[in-house]
């Protein structure tokens, strides 16, 4: 490990010695290394992906035929609510966070994030939030009011489910908020020499935009959830119309967060695809600045469109029209990106390994989801579509066909960097094609079902409505997706059995992370690279002749960083127990809010003790 030289001058004022394990379970539990934390995020999120996917399969089983009773109405409510919460907060957000954590420091030429221990804290708080929400199944019923938790239904529901929802999302919000500040500071402050903002890879840019979206949207949902929690636990009247309150306030607060959240979910995938398409087109990204500024524009406009989730509430024609227009406007920067990706591939020297296939899958599926999204911006049309399966089809094309395809592209692309082994191409392509077919079979027919009037969130449907055929197709599609995920898992298991030995740069790629070894050393780079251009790694390998031909740089001037030598004087931050302690305190506090004030008090004490131990521990052992 790199931390061979132990600094002796560290002011020894910690309560305990800092943990030092570099292998084994403790090294993971106490790690503050952004790469290990990235892997933890990825593994945890994928585990939740399987759980959330199983819930989806249960939903599809229930709906495969009319008048089925596989799930009772109340269990059905719990299942679809948990499916939504899981996929949004416990899968796509943390899976994106896995990429952000692992890649951003490497891409900008940093040794770690700005606050490594806060990073560990974010992970543990997220994990505990997930466990907290899922423990509700055993502690009086899971959340059952939809991931949007509309009042007054959420308040009046007699079970504890929506209380778990409120506190669980608050805990997850703390995790995301801390991480947002951390990553934003990292990107703004920790760039390698010469890495100006406009030499950053698009993925780093999209990550930065996402952190600001998180920082400015999470406080709003925090207030909404606190109000919901107070209404449920203390009998306040925020959403109580009898006392003069207004349930619509919940909707405003929720969607003021909820719409930026959509971009929080999709922008990282857009960043991933913007990295992959140029590599396999062997061309620079077409219109880099346009892609970056479109991302920023999406970030800004994303805060001004939330009412399109609420047309049917009856806010009046002026509000609806204004938000309809802003919703149409946000399609412009999104469209700009689509054309930039097409422009990147245009006349490129294309190859089609799995990451490229998933990226092209992303672009094409996202176009479908984007177009059906534009149809929602039209108020009269949306009146017809609200609460039907058309909406379900739309957002799955965006969040599955978009985000999940992008994330799968990223997994196949960076797997050799992270684990030193390439995923099998054959199985990878099988995953892609099975998933593409399954995905379209599942969600394509939902457009038709929605336009035929099939409502969302209803446990079953009568036979006479003629909805059976497409529902059955959709169920078959869902199981096809499950097969694709299974193939991916087999691929992972087989790949991880192979010996390591991947090149630093197996794809002949363009960004800094490919300059270091695969997997990277703990300190990332033996020598921090000095950056001279966008696509720095590419420019170190290739040069352009005067007539525009690309030539490899002659030997000696090129290539990856030396794998040996130099790395020994670099000591990285020591691992720490305190992020785990503090987040455990947070978890106890969460349970205490439901079950006992003593537990809440104990949780607060543990949290505080963790924070003090954290602040006082020596910087290295």
């Amino acid at each position: 490990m790199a931390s061979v030289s132990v600094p002796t001058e560290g002011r020894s004022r910690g309560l305990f010695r800092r943990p030092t394990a570099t292998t084994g379970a403790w090294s993971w539990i106490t790690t503050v290394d952004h790469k290990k934390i990235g892997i933890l995020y990825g593994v945890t999120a994928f585990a939740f992906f399987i759980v959330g996917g199983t819930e989806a399969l249960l939903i599809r089983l229930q709906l495969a035929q009319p008048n089925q009773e596989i799930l009772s109405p109340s269990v059905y409510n719990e299942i679809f609510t948990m499916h939504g919460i899981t996929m949004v907060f416990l899968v796509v957000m943390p899976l994106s966070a896995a990429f952000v954590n692992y890649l951003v420091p490497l891409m900008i030429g940093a040794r770690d994030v700005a606050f490594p221990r806060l990073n560990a804290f974010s992970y543990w708080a997220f994990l505990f939030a997930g466990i907290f929400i899922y423990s509700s199944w055993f502690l009086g019923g899971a959340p059952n009011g939809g991931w949007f938790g509309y009042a007054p239904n959420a308040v009046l529901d007699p079970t504890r489910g929506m209380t778990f929802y409120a506190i669980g999302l608050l805990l997850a919000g703390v995790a995301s908020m801390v991480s947002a500040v951390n990553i934003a500071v990292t990107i703004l402050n920790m760039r390698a020499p010469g890495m100006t903002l406009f030499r950053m890879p698009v993925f780093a840019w999209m990550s930065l935009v996402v952190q600001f979206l998180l920082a400015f949207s999470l406080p709003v949902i925090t207030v909404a959830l606190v109000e919901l929690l107070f209404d449920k636990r203390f009998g306040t009247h925020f959403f109580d119309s009898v006392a003069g309150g207004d349930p619509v306030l919940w909707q405003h607060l929720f969607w003021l967060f909820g719409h930026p959240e959509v971009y929080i979910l999709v922008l990282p995938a857009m960043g991933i695809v913007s990295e992959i398409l140029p590599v396999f087109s062997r061309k620079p990204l077409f219109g880099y600045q346009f892609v970056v500024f479109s991302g920023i524009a999406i970030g800004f406009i994303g805060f001004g469109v939330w009412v399109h989730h609420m047309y049917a509430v009856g806010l009046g024609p002026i509000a609806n029209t204004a938000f309809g227009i802003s919703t149409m406007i946000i399609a412009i920067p999104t469209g700009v990106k689509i054309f930039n990706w097409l422009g990147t591939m245009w006349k490129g020297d294309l190859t089609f390994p799995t990451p490229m296939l998933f990226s092209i899958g992303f672009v094409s599926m996202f176009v479908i989801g984007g177009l059906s999204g534009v149809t929602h911006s039209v108020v009269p049309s949306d009146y017809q579509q609200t609460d039907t399966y058309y909406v379900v089809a739309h957002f799955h094309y965006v969040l599955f066909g978009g985000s999940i395809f992008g994330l799968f592209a990223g997994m196949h692309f960076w797997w050799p960097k992270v684990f030193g082994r390439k995923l099998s191409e054959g199985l990878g392509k099988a995953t892609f094609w099975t998933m593409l077919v399954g995905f379209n079979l599942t969600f394509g027919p939902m457009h038709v079902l929605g336009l035929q009037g099939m409502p969302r969130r209803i446990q079953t449907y009568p036979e006479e409505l003629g909805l059976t055929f497409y529902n059955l197709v959709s169920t078959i599609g869902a199981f096809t997706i499950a097969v694709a995920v299974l193939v991916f898992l087999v691929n992972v298991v087989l790949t991880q059995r192979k010996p390591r030995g991947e090149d630093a740069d197996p794809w002949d790629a363009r960004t800094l992370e490919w300059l270091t070894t695969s997997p990277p050393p703990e300190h990332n780079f033996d020598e921090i690279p000095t950056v001279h251009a966008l696509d720095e790694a590419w420019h170190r390998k290739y040069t352009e002749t005067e007539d525009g031909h690309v030539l490899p740089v002659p030997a000696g001037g090129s290539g990856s960083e030396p794998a040996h030598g130099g790395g020994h004087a670099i000591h990285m931050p020591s691992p720490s127990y305190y992020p785990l302690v503090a987040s455990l305190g947070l978890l106890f506090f969460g349970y205490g809010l439901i079950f006992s004030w003593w537990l809440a008090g104990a949780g607060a004490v543990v949290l505080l003790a963790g924070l003090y131990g954290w602040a006082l521990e020596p910087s290295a052992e």
Partner: protein
Amino acid sequence: MQEPVAVHAFESEHEDTSTGLPNTKLAMWIFLASDVLLFGALITSYVVYRGRSVVGPYPNDVFDIPYTSVSSFVLLASSLTMVLALSSIQRGDLPRMRLWLLATALLGLTFVGGQVYEFTTFYEEGLSLTTNLFGTTFYVLTGFHGTHVAIGILMLLSVFSLSFGGQITQRDSLTVELVGLYWHFVDIVWIVIFTVVYLVPTGP
């Protein structure tokens, strides 16, 4: 970049950052920007529900504006002592810094004490968290602010105590500056809350 790499990854005071701002300071600014939206949403909830309570007591029945003005003045004065504490440590004058930190914390405590007294009085006059919309929105908004002040006091007292163990020295003036940023922010938020909640008339 051979030598300073070791500190690069640490949460250190002496960093060579891309923007020139220390990491912790940038982090605090982003957090405070985010906190603006937290209070924004809380104040919005209060404003949306102004005058919509269906039963009393109403704001005019319970507010004692001269009293709250005094406690507001106390809180605002604490921003001055906070600045003096920072300027002391930047000059390396630890005893003065301790004095001003303690003064800031005491002024903050006076404010929170005043808020506790105010809440108690309101409660005795029949306004609880659950009485009406006014009680609901008022207590949650001002309670959130009071919690922010209390956390600030905890930070002030922590820095105060640590300075005796030699853990806060002139090199650590950034720590005091960060606490100060937070403290001033909480003060500014109170100006908005005081104006919106107490001073803007609710009408009949």
